[in-house]
């Protein structure tokens, strides 16, 4: 049973008790505790359940690598799942719940998975997907759904704020252990701008726990002095609780700062994402201890030797009264000494090596601790949920039990792996050490920056330097190399250090060496995802050789801890099963982030109103005050319609259309793209951009045109107005203005750079108002100031002048089929003109209309809409727009492509109108059904609906669509599918439903 010791705990303040809750139970800890330590202090050994088998699990590590002790933290909007208890600082009022269990942590129905585990082997999901299909749907899926899922999603309505911070530094150092501090001390002597990050709330890393002496003082003292020096250095910034999350191209790095997780509700952002551009990066990220693979190694009470030592030394917490230490290296002996020093009992040290005679084993023997070499753990005995004993066997054998040793905690150590993640993110390569049996950075194959030079270096244990004086020397040398790259001269030095001598370790990947299959199926590699030695061996037996494939097949290392504890052990087992050396198997790819970062911090301040900029026309406020029902159009908001009190959307749209067609409507068309194209070669340029001829357009005239890309597909359409000899104003679709301007610039800058043409996107410089309907001319005449008669301004003409004493440009164009003027006015006068028009139009019941009325009226006239009739695969010929494709021009963008055989094929679907027999509205996107099925057993089709509306003018459904040989099949009735499986009949008709001869607009 775990408990709080009466003394000790270098990080806790016993004078400051803290209350918290776990699964509703009130508990007490101390300031400085992490949640895992506080739970252990309260006797709570079981902290969670595993993902697949729901096995009860205790904490196994003491830091970021923890796979087991995941909890849901907080309540309401601040609830967050999958938080590691080992990196959660305790605060007064903390509430946590355990995960993956039902109905309770102590009794879990899903744990039945565990007894079914022989039916859920490696690749279970893949195998089950294949056969039999019925079993998946009715048996496996419901079962898996109930037991799957890691934690619960958090609630909407996060009350906290998050921010992004941008910073440029010369040298970024990730990791504030003694290596990072030494690197920073080296750099502090220069004037390089340095940022030093530490993921935990404390500086110095493991050195104080491991008891090294540096420069003649205890590590803790050395760290304190180093911090004082660094805090005084004007060129060094220190940031703790800030995890270096990823290294990216050209010196870019991300860091994740947990600002107020330990004091919820405090002022300021909860998390901060540091977006760092660094000249040089040093990763002093230390190493992680590996578990040992013995039967029962996942039982609560079994933990890493370093973690057990941390709980005693850092938090004054005893994980158990009688501890068994099992190891293949000398470092774990430090744990035995720490246990002994704290007054607890070391039942036995089980060392898999044939002999252990270094200074640390000797110190343990001198302290009276029993050391058994050449031995292994054969199994772990439990009584209820409490660990009771271990069985000891020979490491060389198959597991015959030699002795049973009573204990309530096991400290295991399989050696240490440098944290090479950040080194590897941008291509740093690794070597395998035959001394320490781990991967470490290959300094000759480093990540390169924009100059092709090295920009990431490792320092200390992350380099594979295992002894304290080597760690410090290596850190200083890495800093000097980075500083020299930056043009600073610095000097490396190697502080003296003692207390870190260790004997050689031995590789032990399975314990005992000849363990049976039954034993291997109880040896956990990946604790969180429940992957065992037997699973990896099965994968190898089934033919998986690549470590990347095995990872995905078994899910090894795919949990939220990303295999920090399991990867090396897993690939060692795979190498063993494949009978090849470990470096030949290699590692899986290291990808950022190093540990999970919050979704909130990724979004940063970019949520709600700041998610993206909102573009407003000058009349936006008027629309809002007059019942606008908004619709997003790109970054603009446009009124879909204006609803009156008690009116439905459909009724509003019908009213707007009827009033416009019968009398007078007005539309805010300001979002329409307006691009000025000017210069002596402007006409020549537009002839290349448009499929039709623009250079022949006379000043004062307008022409509708189509733009295609080089693939021949329609990109945009709109009206071009020629302003004078050298200048054209190009109107684009509302959503297409920026894109079309970029398109023009691409061709002007990169292909026809010697053409004398200048473009300017004037979209926001002008407000534009369409005045539409039979009374439109009367209204303009009432406003007064210019001649808008049929004689002065014919259809498709424009003129500059004055209306209602405002400077305007009036275009006589129509997208509704009615008599229509579009009036452009400087944007800052837009609202003024709009209000004057509304006032003057009262006598004709002038009606503002929205985008839906606009769409319906254009569809009634058979006008196409980019994005409805086109989808990036449609050419003008498909839309019967061949009249707008110049035969005279030698060249235009898309011309060559439209000559390709598939484009010229008579089998392409072509535009027609569609009228349902019953008058109903066709479903949007519905397909015209054809006889038979294709090779996938799907129904053959012969067309599809591209636009479909209820027409208030005609009192029935109207639609446009693309149909095979459509224009040749007028009058034919087709069947269109509906989502409920039924079909609806529609007749092929002319797409112009209303005023076919254009009599209404030519008045």
């Amino acid at each position, binding site marked *: 049973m775990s408990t709080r010791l009466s003394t000790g705990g270098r990080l806790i303040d016993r004078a400051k008790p803290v209350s918290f809750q776990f699964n509703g139970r009130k508990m007490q800890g101390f300031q400085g505790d992490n949640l895992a330590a506080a739970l252990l202090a309260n006797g709570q050994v079981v902290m969670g359940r595993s993902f697949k088998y729901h096995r009860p699990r205790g904490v196994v590590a003491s830091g970021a690598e923890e796979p087991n002790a995941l909890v849901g933290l907080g309540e309401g909007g601040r609830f967050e799942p999958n938080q590691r208890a080992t990196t959660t600082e305790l605060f007064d009022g903390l509430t946590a719940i355990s995960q993956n269990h039902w109905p309770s942590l102590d009794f879990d129905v899903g744990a039945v998975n565990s007894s079914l585990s022989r039916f859920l082997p490696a690749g279970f999901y893949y195998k089950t997907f294949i056969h039999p299909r019925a079993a998946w749907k009715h048996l496996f899926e419901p079962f898996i759904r109930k037991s799957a899922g890691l934690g619960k999603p958090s609630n909407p309505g996060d009350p906290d704020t998050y921010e992004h911070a941008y910073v440029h530094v010369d040298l970024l150092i990730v990791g504030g252990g003694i290596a990072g501090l030494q690197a920073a001390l080296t750099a502090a002597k220069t004037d390089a701008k340095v940022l030093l990050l530490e993921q935990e709330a404390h500086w110095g890393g493991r050195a104080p726990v491991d008891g090294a002496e540096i420069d003649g003082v205890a590590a803790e003292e050395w760290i304190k002095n180093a911090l004082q020096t660094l805090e005084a250095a004007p060129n060094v910034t220190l940031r703790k609780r800030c995890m270096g999350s990823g290294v990216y191209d050209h010196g870019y790095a991300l860091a994740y700062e947990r600002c107020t997780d330990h004091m919820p509700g405090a002022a300021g952002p909860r998390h901060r994402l540091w977006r760092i*551009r660094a000249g040089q990066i040093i990763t002093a990220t230390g190493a992680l201890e590996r578990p040992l693979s013995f039967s029962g190694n996942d039982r609560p009470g079994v933990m890493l030797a370093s973690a057990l030592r941390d709980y005693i030394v850092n938090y004054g917490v005893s994980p158990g009264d009688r501890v068994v230490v099992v190891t293949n290296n000398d470092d774990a002996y430090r744990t035995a000494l720490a246990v002994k020093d704290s007054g607890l009992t070391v039942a036995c040290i089980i060392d898999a090596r044939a002999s252990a005679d270094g200074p640390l084993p000797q110190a343990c023997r001198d302290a009276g601790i029993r050391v058994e070499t050449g031995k292994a753990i054969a199994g772990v005995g439990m009584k209820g949920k409490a660990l009771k004993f271990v069985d000891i066997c020979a490491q060389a054998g198959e597991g015959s039990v030699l002795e049973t040793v009573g204990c309530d905690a096991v400290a295991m150590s399989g050696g240490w792996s440098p944290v090479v993640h950040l080194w590897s993110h941008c291509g740093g390569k690794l070597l395998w050490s035959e001394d320490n049996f781990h991967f470490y950075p290959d300094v000759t194959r480093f990540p390169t920056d*924009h*100059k092709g030079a090295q920009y990431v270096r490792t320092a200390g244990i992350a380099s594979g330097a295992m002894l304290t004086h080597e760690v410090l020397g290596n850190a200083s040398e890495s800093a000097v190399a980075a500083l020299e790259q930056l043009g600073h001269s610095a000097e490396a030095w190697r502080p003296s250090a003692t207390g870190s001598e260790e004997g050689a370790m031995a590789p032990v990947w399975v314990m005992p060496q000849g363990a049976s299959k039954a034993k291997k199926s109880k040896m956990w590699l990946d604790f969180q995802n429940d992957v065992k030695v037997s699973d990896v061996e099965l994968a190898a037996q089934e033919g998986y050789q690549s470590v990347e494939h095995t990872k995905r097949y078994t899910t090894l290392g795919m949990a939220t801890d990303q295999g920090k504890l399991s990867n090396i052990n897993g690939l060692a087992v795979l190498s063993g099963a494949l009978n090849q050396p470990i470096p030949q198997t290699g590692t899986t790819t290291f990808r950022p982030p190093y540990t999970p970062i919050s979704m909130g911090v990724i979004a940063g301040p970019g949520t709600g109103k700041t998610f993206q900029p909102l573009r407003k026309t000058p009349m936006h406020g008027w629309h809002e005050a007059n019942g606008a029902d908004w619709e997003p159009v790109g970054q603009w908001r446009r009124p879909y319609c204006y609803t009156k009190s008690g009116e439905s959307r459909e009724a509003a749209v019908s009213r707007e259309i009827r009033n416009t067609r019968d009398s007078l409507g007005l539309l805010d068309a300001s979002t329409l793209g307006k691009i000025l194209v000017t210069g002596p070669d402007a006409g020549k340029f537009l002839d290349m951009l448009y499929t039709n001829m623009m250079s022949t357009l006379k000043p004062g005239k307008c022409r509708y045109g189509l733009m295609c890309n*080089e693939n021949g597909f329609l990109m945009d359409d709109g009206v071009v107005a020629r302003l004078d000899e050298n200048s054209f104003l190009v109107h684009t679709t509302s959503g297409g203005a920026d894109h079309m301007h970029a398109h023009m610039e*691409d061709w002007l*800058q990169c292909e026809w*750079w010697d053409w004398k043409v200048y473009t300017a996107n004037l979209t926001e410089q002008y407000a534009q108002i369409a005045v539409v309907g039979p009374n439109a001319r009367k209204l303009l005449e009432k406003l007064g100031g210019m001649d808008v008669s049929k004689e002065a301004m014919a259809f498709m003409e424009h003129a500059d002048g004055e209306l209602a004493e405002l400077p305007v440009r009036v275009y006589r164009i129509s997208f509704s089929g009615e008599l229509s003027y579009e009036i452009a006015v400087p944007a800052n006068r837009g609202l003024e003109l709009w209000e004057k028009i509304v006032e003057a139009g009262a006598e004709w019941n002038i009606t503002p209309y929205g985008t839906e009325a606009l769409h319906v009226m254009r569809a009634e006239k058979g006008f196409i809409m980019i994005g409805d009739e086109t989808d990036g695969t449609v050419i003008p010929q498909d839309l019967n727009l061949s009249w707008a494709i110049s035969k005279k021009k030698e060249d235009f963008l898309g011309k060559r*492509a439209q*000559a390709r055989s598939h484009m010229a094929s008579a089998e392409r679907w072509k535009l027609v109108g569609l009228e349902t027999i019953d008058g109903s509205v066709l479903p949007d996107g519905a397909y015209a059904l054809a006889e038979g099925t294709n090779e996938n057993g799907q129904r053959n089709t012969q067309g599809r609906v591209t636009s479909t509306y209820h027409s208030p003018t005609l009192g029935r459904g109207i639609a446009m669509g693309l149909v095979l040989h459509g224009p040749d099949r007028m009058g034919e009735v087709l069947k269109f599918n509906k989502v409920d499986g039924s079909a609806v009949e529609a007749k092929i008709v002319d797409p112009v439903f209303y005023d076919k001869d254009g009599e209404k607009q030519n008045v």
Partner: protein
Amino acid sequence: MLKFTCPYCGIEASETELAAGGEAHLKRYGPGSSEQDFEGYLFLRKNPKGVHLERWRHVMGCGKWFLAARHTATLEVFGTYSAQTHEPPAEIIENIRAKFPEWQA
């Protein structure tokens, strides 16, 4: 996140300021060109593990297109230059050949 120096405004710009535009120095084939030439122009792109001449636009800056010589594996940038040329300037070719003597544009 890559960074390039815009040869027009001189700013060392992060990728977030830039838009990538694919292979540089494509020769346009228009009406009358063979199916093979047109296919090559429209669809066939170099994909070297090595030095690549490519188009970038300083879209969140001066708006200009420029070209860059970048190694796709080491990410080394041998130089950026005007888009208004049919080949890289001699200086950039020299930079590339200093490391890859065999390199051909």
